[in-house]
C-alpha cells in the first residue's frame, strides 16, 4: 500500500503489532531543539534502547512519551490510540509506565507503601474514605510481589528515606511494574549503581524482556548492547541511526558522534587540568 506508506509509515507498522509509535515529534525550549522530528515504532515485546551523548534529548523524549511535556509537533500513538493530548495519569492507566532518572519516590512512606500506591492507582478510583488501605490485601499482596521481583522483599517495611541509592533504583522499577503496565519507559535505571547492582538489574531486565515492551535509556553501553533488540541513536534531538546492536556498532555516524563527544570531554578535562 504505497498510499498508506506515504501518509504515515507507522500505519503500516500498526498491522504488525506496533505498541508505541511516534511520528514527527518535535519540541523546542527557546532556541534549543530538544526533539527534532523524531519518528520510530516499537513492536510488542521489543526492548528498544535509546542512546546518545549527554544533552541529546533522551529524557525530554521520555517525558513527552509519558505525557509530562506536550510536544510542539508530532503524534504519539500507544496501542493504536492517539495519546498525544492525554495527561500522564491517563497514559499510566492505559499501561504506559515510566521510571525516573532522578529517583522520584515517596520518601516518608515505607517501600511497601510506595508500591502499594502504584497498585492502588490501577485498582479503580480511590474515592474510598473509610477502610484502612494499609490492611487491604488486594493492594498489599501485588505490592509485595513487585518488591520481591526486584529483590526488595526484605526491605518492605523500611522507610524509603532510609534505603540506599541502589535500592531506590530498584524501588523505581518495582513501582513501574506494580502498575501492571504493557510498556515500560525506563530512564537510566542503572544510573549511579555499583557493578553488582547493575548486574542484578541487567538480569532482571532480561527477565522482563520476554513479558513487556521496554523503551530503555541507558548510558551503560555494555548493558544496552547485551539487552536491546533494537537501538536508536539520538544526537541533538535528532535520530542519526536506528537498527540492531550489530548495525549500530558498525555505523560510522554513530562512532563519530560518540568519538566527538569523547574528544570534547577530553578537551574539557585537559582545560580543567591546565586551569
Amino acid at each position, binding site marked *: 500500500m504505497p498510499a498508506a506508506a506515504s501518509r504515515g509509515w507507522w500505519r503500516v507498522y500498526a498491522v504488525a503489532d506496533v505498541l508505541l509509535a511516534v511520528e514527527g515529534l518535535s519540541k523546542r525550549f527557546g532556541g534549543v531543539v530538544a526533539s527534532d522530528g523524531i519518528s520510530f515504532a516499537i513492536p510488542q515485546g521489543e526492548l528498544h534502547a535509546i542512546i546518545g551523548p549527554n544533552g541529546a534529548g533522551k529524557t525530554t523524549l521520555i517525558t513527552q512519551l509519558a505525557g509530562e511535556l506536550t510536544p510542539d509537533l508530532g503524534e504519539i500513538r500507544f496501542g493504536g490510540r492517539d495519546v498525544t493530548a492525554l*495527561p*500522564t495519569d491517563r497514559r499510566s492507566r492505559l499501561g504506559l*509506565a*515510566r521510571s525516573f532518572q532522578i529517583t522520584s519516590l515517596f520518601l*516518608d512512606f515505607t517501600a511497601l507503601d510506595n508500591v502499594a500506591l502504584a497498585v492502588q492507582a490501577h485498582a479503580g478510583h*480511590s474515592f474510598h474514605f*473509610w477502610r484502612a488501605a494499609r490492611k487491604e490485601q488486594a493492594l498489599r499482596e501485588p505490592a509485595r510481589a513487585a518488591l520481591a521481583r526486584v529483590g526488595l522483599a526484605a526491605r518492605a517495611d523500611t522507610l524509603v528515606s532510609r534505603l540506599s541509592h541502589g535500592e531506590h533504583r530498584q524501588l523505581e522499577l518495582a513501582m513501574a511494574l506494580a502498575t501492571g503496565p504493557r510498556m515500560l519507559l525506563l530512564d537510566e535505571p542503572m544510573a549511579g549503581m555499583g557493578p553488582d547492582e547493575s548486574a542484578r538489574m541487567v538480569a532482571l531486565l532480561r527477565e522482563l524482556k520476554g513479558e513487556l515492551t521496554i523503551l530503555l535509556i541507558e548510558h551503560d553501553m555494555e548493558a544496552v548492547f547485551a539487552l536491546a533488540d533494537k537501538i536508536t541513536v539520538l544526537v541533538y534531538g535528532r535520530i542519526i541511526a536506528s537498527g540492531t546492536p550489530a548495525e549500530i556498532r558498525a555505523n560510522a555516524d554513530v562512532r563519530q558522534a560518540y568519538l566527538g563527544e569523547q574528544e570534547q570531554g577530553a578537551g574539557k578535562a585537559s582545560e580543567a587540568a591546565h586551569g
Partner: protein
Amino acid sequence: MTLLTPRNALVAGVLALLALVPVYATLTGNFFLLSLFTRIVILAIAAVSLNLIMGFGGMVSFGHAAYLGIGGYAIGILAKEGINSGFLQWPFALAASALFALIVGALSLRTRGVYFIMITLAFAQMVYYVAIGLDRYGGDDGMTIYKRSQFGDWINLSNKTAFYYLCLALLLVTIYLVWRIVNSRFGLVIQGARSNDRRMRAIGFATYRYKLTCFVIAGVLCGLAGALLANHTDFINPSIMHWTRSGDLIVMAVLGGMGTVFGPVLGALSLIALEEALPALIRAVTLPFLGGDSAARVAEYWQLALGPLFLLVVLYARGGIEGLVAGVRRG
C-alpha cells in the same frame, strides 16, 4: 503495638480533661472556664480540619478562617431572616462552606507553594470585605444572634453544658472521621500527593480531583466549627475571618503537630490556654519587681513571650507537642 504509650496517655488525659470541664465548672460555678473550653473545642475542630489539608495534604491554606465566617454568617443571616431551625441553618452553613471551598480549591489547586497560600489568602480577604459590606447584617460591627439554632426537643443549645458536650462530641466525630480518611485509600492518595505529586501522576493518579475533594471536606468541617462558634458567642462579625485568625489556625496545627490527627487539638488547647494564662503569669512574675501598674503594662506584651515559644516548637520539635511526646511522626 501497645496501648499504653506516652502519646496515648496524653491523648486520654486531654480527652478526660475535656470531658470533665462542665463538671468542674458546675461544682465551682466557674462558667468562664466552661465558655473558654467551649471556644477551645470549637477551634480545635477548625484546626483539625485545617490539618487534614495542610498536614496530610501539604496544602497550606492561609484562608481557613473564611469558613469560620461563612459557617457563622450562614447561621446569623438565617437567624436574622427569622429562620431559627437548626435543621435548616446547619445544612445551609455546611453547603455554603462546601461551595466556597469548591470555588477556592478549583482555582488555587492549580498553583503551588507561595501562590497557593496567596490565593487562599486573597479569597478569604474577599469574603472578609464582603462581610464588612453587608449593611443589613451589621457590616463592620457584626450582628447579635438573638436565638441559637433550634433543634426542637432534641437538644437545647442555650444550655451551656449541653452545648459544650455537643461541641465535644462533634470534635470527637471530626477526629474519628479525619483519622479514617487519612488511613483510607483516599487519604493515602492525599499524602502521596503531598510527598510527590509528580510521581503520583506518573503512576496513574489524577491528583487534582482528590486534592479538591479533600479541600472541600476540610472546608465543610471548618464551616461546622463556624456554625458552632456563632451559636457559642451569640454574635457574628467580620473579624472572625480576619487573616490573623487563619494564622491562629495554622499556629494551632503546627504547635500541636501536623503529622497526626490529634495534634491540632493539643495545639488549640495550648494556644488558647497560653493566650489566657500568659498575661496573668507575666503580671504575677513581674509584680514584685515593678509594682502593680508597670506589671500590668508589661503583661500587655504577653505575645512577646508567645512568639519565642512558638519558635522553639518549630525549631526543635518538628512534630509539635504530640511529636515531642510520641517521638513518632505520621499516621
